[in-house]
């Protein structure tokens, strides 16, 4: 049950007790934090669970695969920190991770 910090675009911060084994996307939704749409339900197929993960955590979360890369490529607000939260599996090793949400999902 790692503790994560989710920061909305306009700065509101949420501390959530995440459930290991579930995706980051599902954890954010389950905790009622606004800013993730997740239209496709976690199939890496819509791009509406976009979030930003700091480089320091990339060793733990891993890098996006080819399909996630392709979906991220459609985001006009994509940065080097962009990830789809449905593709990150939460585990205890993410304790303390900070996730930022984008201005919009599309």
């Amino acid at each position, binding site marked *: 049950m790692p503790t994560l910090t989710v920061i909305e675009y306009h700065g509101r911060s949420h501390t959530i007790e995440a459930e290991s084994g579930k995706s980051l996307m599902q954890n954010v939704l389950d905790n009622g934090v606004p800013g993730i749409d997740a*239209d496709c339900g976690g199939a890496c197929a819509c791009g509406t669970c976009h979030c930003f993960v700091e480089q320091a955590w990339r060793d733990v979360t891993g890098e996006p695969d080819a399909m996630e890369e392709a979906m991220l490529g459609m985001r006009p607000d994509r940065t080097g920190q962009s990830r789809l939260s449905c593709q990150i599996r939460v585990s205890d090793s993410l304790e303390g991770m900070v996730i930022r949400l984008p201005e919009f999902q599309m």
Partner: protein
Amino acid sequence: MNQAAALPDPECVSLDAIAISDTRLYQQDAWRPFFERLRREDPVHYQAESPFGPFWSITRFDDIVAVETNFRDFSSEPTIVIGDLADDIPFEMFIAMDPPRHDEQRRAVQSVVAPKNLAEMEGLIRGRVVEILDRLPVGETFDWVESVAINLTTQMLATLFDFPFEERSKLTYWSDIAAGSPEIAGGDVSHEERLAGLTECLETFTRIWHERRGREESFDLISLLQRDPSTADLPERPMEFLGNLCLLIVGGNDTTRNSITGGVLALNQHPGEYDKLRADPRLIPSMVSETIRWQTPLMHMRRTATRDLEFQGRQIKQGDKVVMWYLSGNRDESAIERPEEFIIDRPNPRHHISFGFGIHRCMGNRLAEMQLRVLWEEIMQRFDRVEVVGEPERIKSNFVRGYSSLPVRVHPR
């Protein structure tokens, strides 16, 4: 295929004989039991003979997602509808391209319809909506398709492009001819007419582009394209310019138009849901998503297999057409609870397949949702009920699920 004969019995006809491309299924609104049987007994179905040649039908939600996210095995080239189009206008249209060209061209224009820009357009769109609704003839029967759906979609297109308002019917005309060839959707636009029309479209927009250059604080699509570094020189690549214009015009025309009419029809067929909406207009955003699912304004998208492969136990050959039936995926009970019902407060109303999934997912999805939301906000303020008083007439196509007329009366609050 004998078009004059009656449709076969969907439960008795042999699976091989189910002809899912037959436009009568859609014009007569008779498609439900045919797709239901295919989802149950033959979810990846082969139709050996059709006016469009042989093709595979993918009918289950999860299988559609699987095909759509596998762009290496299932290509969007040369085209994305059942019929092949012999085309001598070398459109650069990224909807019918694979990566990496698709990615470059889409990236150049997608920020134009990002929700950030949409907020700036909302006021303009609301103004048009109000004008149209305030002029509706209260107490008379009129055609919702003509008076509201077509009128409003045309005005919205003109507003989005800041196109000369009195010439706005040209936009609808160009949209109709761009996708109106007989080979693709059974239309009757001649080759010469199409070429002349699209040439005029390109010339008109090139002129508008040059006249508009340097105008500040404008949030129309042309100004946004001009301000974005990757598209600031778009007219220097005329076929890419024309391709993107047509995609924006066609993409925002039939789809929104038929969802506007579909919403009225759905609420009339489900009066309990209409009551819910009247009691709580905050349901409008989820009702809009449910309408887009329920209507499924584009019934299919097509891919072409790039190699011999096995999919769900069927042998698909390189070059085979693979048609993903969004209409069926949106009625798949294994993905959507009580799919035949129109339920405006579903827990996850955006979990539908009308926008497609994967890298070709509809770029204008948030724009479409915004337009429909604004329309319904204004309808609910004015009218207790938009009452359907006769049968809808449906268009002949296996691609666009649309209406040519719907008689209604409006009852003010």
